């Protein structure tokens, strides 16, 4: 299979790069470190399920950065240098290249997350904690998808632009919008509408849904619903964790799919 050949080569190249190794180590270590301090900082009871809630906030900040940094150069680097011409003059399709790259980069990140979460789970359980296996597994799976989402968003920018610099700027704009601007917009909107007397305290459910479409919030809602069980949705069905799960899967394939559709139509200059 051609995509596997692309993926295998890309894993070798990515692991060979120091900056990628640093990113992966940073991710792994911070998850394990979180597990190390959680029994000390967290409130009782100490369980692997509640650990998920403890870690989720940090992951919504960390994984967007790590994901796009791993993904943004995947195709545009080779396109800019001309190495992409070698890949595409072999019997590889553009889909093989994109899918192989995605599997390689997202695979390295999810692999790192998986190993570090298993280690973290063990650290939480031993010596005082309680293992809540099902919910911890759910947390692990959702975290892996969330990491892939950001890798995919980085890769999508890599497909859309012609230079590495533009891909980097566009990727960081996404992360900045998602991690920093989004909260500020929500807070401003709520304060404004509240002061104007339009709403009392909370935004109406449709507005909550729209603001909640951002990947980090989707992730948080799934963790709240499926892992810690601290449901925050106020009755509207479209605010529940299952809809959020569908949205998260949508984020993992939608942007990349659209970017691929554009990439496959364009000339490789």
């Amino acid at each position, binding site marked *: 299979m051609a995509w596997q*050949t692309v993926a295998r080569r890309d894993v*070798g*190249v990515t692991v060979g790069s120091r900056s990628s190794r640093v990113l992966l180590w940073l991710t792994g270590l911070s998850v394990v470190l979180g597990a190390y301090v959680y029994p000390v900082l967290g409130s009782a009871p100490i369980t692997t399920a509640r650990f998920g809630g403890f870690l989720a906030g940090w992951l919504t900040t960390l994984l967007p950065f790590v994901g796009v940094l791993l993904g943004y150069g995947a195709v545009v680097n080779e396109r800019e*240098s001309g*190495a992409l*011409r070698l890949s*595409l003059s*072999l019997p590889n399709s553009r889909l093989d290249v994109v899918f192989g790259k995605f599997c390689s980069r997202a695979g390295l990140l999810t692999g790192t997350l998986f190993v570090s979460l298993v280690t973290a789970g063990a650290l939480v359980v031993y010596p005082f904690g309680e293992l809540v296996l099902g919910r911890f597994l759910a947390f692990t799976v959702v975290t892996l998808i969330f990491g892939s989402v950001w890798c995919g968003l980085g890769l999508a920018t890599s497909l859309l632009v012609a230079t590495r610099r533009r891909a980097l700027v566009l990727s960081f704009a996404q992360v900045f919008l998602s991690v920093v601007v989004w909260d500020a917009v929500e807070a401003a909107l709520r304060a404004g509408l509240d002061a104007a007397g339009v709403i009392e305290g909370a935004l109406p459910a449709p507005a909550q849904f729209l603001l909640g479409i951002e990947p980090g919030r989707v992730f948080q809602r799934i963790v709240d619903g499926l892992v810690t069980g601290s449901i925050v949705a106020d009755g509207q069905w479209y605010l529940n964790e299952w809809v959020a799960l569908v949205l998260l899967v949508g984020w993992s394939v939608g942007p990349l799919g659209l970017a691929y559709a554009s990439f496959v139509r364009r000339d*490789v*200059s």
Partner: protein
Amino acid sequence: MAAIDASAVSKRYRTELALDRVDFTVEQGETFGFLGPNGAGKSTFINMLLDFAKPTAGSVRIFGHDCQAAGVAARGRIGVLPEGYSVYERLTGRQHIEYAIHSKEADDDPVEILDRVGIRDDADRLASDYSKGMAQRLVLGMALVGEPDLLILDEPSTGLDPNGAARMREILREENERGATVFFSSHILEQVEAVCDRVGILRDGELVAVDTIDGLRDSLGGGTKLVITVAEFVEGMLEAVSAVDGVETAVTAGDRSIEVTCVDDAKMDILVELNALGVDVVNFRTDEASLEDMFIEYTGARR
């Protein structure tokens, strides 16, 4: 089935027409040279064969597979040396060849291929540290993986020293003898003349000629060049020679020489005419029109 079949293929970039209804076929087993000055559209055409670019109109096929609709199948049995490539960072020469072997699902020995293109000793160095000529040899090696039925090479001798260029020609000849079709673009005429069965000449996106080198010679009015050395020039001599049937041009070259291009049959008439004028012919020789003469004739490169 033709190795390459282009039917009325055009490519427009915004305002510029890079290729204009190019129509020709390359038969299996031949060595075909694709000639033209820089910017004539050679690379644009090859980019469409490889689906780097899509035609604005018309289509190109490799062994019957449409290069756009069935690109992977079209590239399945070919070896490519594209232009404007770069090698992968962080991969050695050997890993490059291995990547090509996996992609083509072939079972070649990487070392054997590296040996063939003359960079065996550098197999385990990072290819990004290679010189331009070594990189060119490496990518030629990748093209040779899997005994392809068709080799597509864009300006293959770029960056090669004379030894490398000679080795390249030798490899192309070996591959052709094995049964592979060879298609390459070049603006270096000696190279084309040395190895090609047929050539296509491209000018400003239009294919102005497709023929064997002999055929091109014939179609250029016989293409014979007569160089006549005389004792001394005589008034009205050039006009008289120009007036002979079958003469295309007559110019003086140096103090005592005249160069005449004409059809074969006119040679004797010219000498007779000069004799009648009382010109003393010291020496004469005929040159076959070189590919370069024909190239200039077809592409108007001197204009």
